[in-house]
């Protein structure tokens, strides 16, 4: 059944969507990925550049559908660039020859096949120093995909059910992260595996099967759902690798592909947002007001996350003024729907600090604390309290609009908070003593909740059975010196997670219940302006 699903997806999808799993197929065949395009037309006609297991450089141009003469004439300039221009990459000698491949999820007509043969023969005969052009059509692609998927497929009826729930989604809604995590962790990333090659293979399979699962969301171009799905996969791979104690180099390729897909989708979301006059979506009857404001909250968090991500991979990155302008303009229109909204604002705070807008960053942090105290104070019954971070925006919206079978009882959140402690720590690290002093009394009336995870890999787990749900009130009389020392020592206590620093600002948007003192300390800038 899965084979039919692969075929069904592969025939209908486009090059943008089969790029990531194709890279995984190449990795399965022993290639090392040197370059993978981020879904933009690339110069030199090369979407993917690899070194194969024999040390030979390979360049791939990916296309969609059948290639007949009309299509061939259309793409021929790109193909000429593919075979004629050398690979230009910082780590590759320009004089080194490469093999060229035209990859497409359709068939080749005989006329085009003859033309390709003639081009190759002519280049050899005339001793042109061009690369030989090979083709990978749907038949070869399908064979490779099925082989790379291997035995790592759902076997139990329950796993098939999870697969179908995801694969048959309408693609317009939020992505069901819980179901996806359950499917990948249970059906694909097999914890019983012992051999290193099997473990590596199942990680590769997880990337490939994710591409098929996301078909409905790809078709609807639901960038945010796709972003969330790839982040869940990346987190699942990291968790699995940590639990299996395997070396980072053995899974990094796969986790990087998942991460780059997540980033690409978030970038596409932001690019689309820049050209939109408004952000209404779908059926207008159900849009506007809180729904609209929550979309803006997600967008400002996404813009900030992309800017921070770009900076994390390029020290010389110049921030996009359009992104900053978007955040500045929309920040007054957003909605702090609950504690699960915090990571979106956290990204904006960190971005502002990177730009040098320290006052704005501090003001935003303080505004969040004031909102939290006003909403969740035990004595205050005027406001609806902020739900804890285990409740996502869609659950909160559905509950407020009465669409849930069992609506959330918001009163249970009075007098407690998960994000209070990390906010206090952030303010202490920023030397915001006078602000905290004024608010210390109401702060001490809020119970600090936190979930202490037993095993480090479970930070990347959607849920874990192993851990302690703790609660305590903040100290009534609190030493500022102690508070500040504790806040800074949290950074050194988070050293185990520092390897994932560049992942965390994206990860916490998708896993807001993991935004605690430890994970937020990982994200703090090296030099915090006071």
């Amino acid at each position, binding site marked *: 059944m899965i084979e039919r699903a692969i075929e069904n997806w592969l025939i209908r999808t486009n090059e943008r969507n089969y790029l990531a799993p194709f890279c995984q197929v190449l990795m399965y065949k022993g290639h090392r990925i040197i370059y993978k395009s981020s879904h933009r037309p690339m110069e030199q006609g090369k979407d993917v550049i690899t070194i194969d297991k024999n040390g030979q450089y390979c360049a791939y141009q990916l296309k969609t559908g059948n290639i007949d003469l009309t299509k061939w004439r259309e793409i021929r300039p790109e193909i000429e660039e593919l075979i004629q221009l050398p690979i230009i990459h910082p780590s590759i000698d320009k004089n080194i020859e490469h093999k060229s491949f035209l990859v497409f999820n359709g068939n080749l007509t005989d006329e085009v096949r003859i033309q390709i043969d003639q081009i190759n023969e002519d280049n050899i005969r005339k001793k042109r120093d061009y690369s030989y052009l090979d083709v990978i059509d749907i038949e070869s692609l399908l064979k490779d995909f099925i082989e790379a998927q291997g035995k790592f497929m759902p076997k139990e009826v329950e796993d098939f059910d999870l697969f179908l729930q995801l694969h048959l989604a309408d693609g317009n809604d939020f992505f069901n992260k819980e179901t996806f995590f359950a499917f990948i962790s249970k059906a694909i990333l097999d914890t019983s595996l012992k051999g290193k090659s099997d473990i590596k293979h199942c990680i590769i399979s997880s990337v490939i099967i994710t591409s098929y699962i996301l078909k409905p969301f790809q078709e609807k171009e639901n960038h945010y759902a796709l972003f969330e799905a790839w982040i869940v996969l990346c987190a699942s791979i990291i968790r699995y690798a940590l639990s299996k104690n395997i070396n980072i180099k053995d899974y990094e390729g796969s986790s990087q592909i998942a991460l780059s897909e997540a980033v690409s989708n978030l970038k596409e979301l932001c690019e689309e947002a820049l050209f939109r006059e408004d952000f209404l979506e779908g059926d207008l009857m159900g849009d506007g007001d809180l729904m609209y404001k929550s979309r803006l909250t997600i967008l400002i968090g996404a813009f900030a996350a992309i800017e921070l991500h770009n900076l994390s991979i390029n020290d010389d990155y110049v921030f996009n003024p359009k992104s900053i302008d978007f955040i500045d303009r929309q920040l007054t229109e957003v909605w702090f729907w609950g504690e699960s909204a915090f990571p979106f604002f956290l990204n904006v705070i960190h971005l502002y600090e990177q730009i040098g807008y320290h006052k704005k960053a501090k003001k935003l942090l303080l505004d969040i604390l004031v909102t939290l105290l006003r909403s969740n104070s035990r004595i205050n019954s005027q406001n609806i309290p902020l739900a*804890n971070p285990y409740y996502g925006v869609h659950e909160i919206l559905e509950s407020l609009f009465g669409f849930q079978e069992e609506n959330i009882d918001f009163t249970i959140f009075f007098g*407690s908070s998960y994000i209070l402690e990390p906010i206090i720590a952030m303010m202490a690290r920023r030397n915001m*003593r006078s602000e905290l002093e004024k608010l210390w009394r109401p702060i001490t009336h809020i119970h600090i909740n936190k979930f202490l995870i037993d095993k480090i890999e479970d930070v990347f787990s959607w849920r874990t059975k*192993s851990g*302690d*749900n*703790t609660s*305590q009130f903040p100290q009534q*009389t*609190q030493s500022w010196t102690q508070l500040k020392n504790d806040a800074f020592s949290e950074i050194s206590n988070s050293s185990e997670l520092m390897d994932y620093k560049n992942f965390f600002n994206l990860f916490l948007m998708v896993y807001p219940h993991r935004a605690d003192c430890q994970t937020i300390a990982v994200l703090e800038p090296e030099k915090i302006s006071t």
Partner: protein
Amino acid sequence: MKEQMHRSSIMAEIKTIPHFEGDRMSTKYDDGDIDKSNYNLFSAELSVKRDDIIKLGFKAFIEGIKKAAEELKSQQSKMVFEKLNEVTTKTGNVVNAKGKPISYDLLLKTLETIQLDFDDNGNPLMPTMVVSPEQYEKMKEKIVEWENDPECNKQFEKIINQKRKEWHDRESNRKLVD
């Protein structure tokens, strides 16, 4: 079932916060003491006779659900009171009536042992008192009597004023220091 469980139950007065993960919980008190506990499973049997289903259809289940809910309610309440006993015994917050019926003095003595909070206007946030249905029947008339007795009111006010002072002291200690 859930609704039925909370109907006229002390459980309805207690905030229930779902935990989505983990295998245990702990609460740290102001004195540094940590109370650790594991999750307990509550279960009840729902049994309905085949003949009743044939005769009554779904209605046959309603009585069973009510019984199961009562059983779960009783288990939960038992657990809550066991926990209360454990904590109060540990902290010494126990007033022993030594078998005597509840008197006004005993009530005041109990009030003296607990920490009382006040709202921003200085009004006491009075705790809920849990007594057995039999005790409640006996107390009903006495409560009216106590409420109309000036001497009782005087003693009550005295304790409340003392508690208000303690609360002010506590609140003024809620601050950041060097």
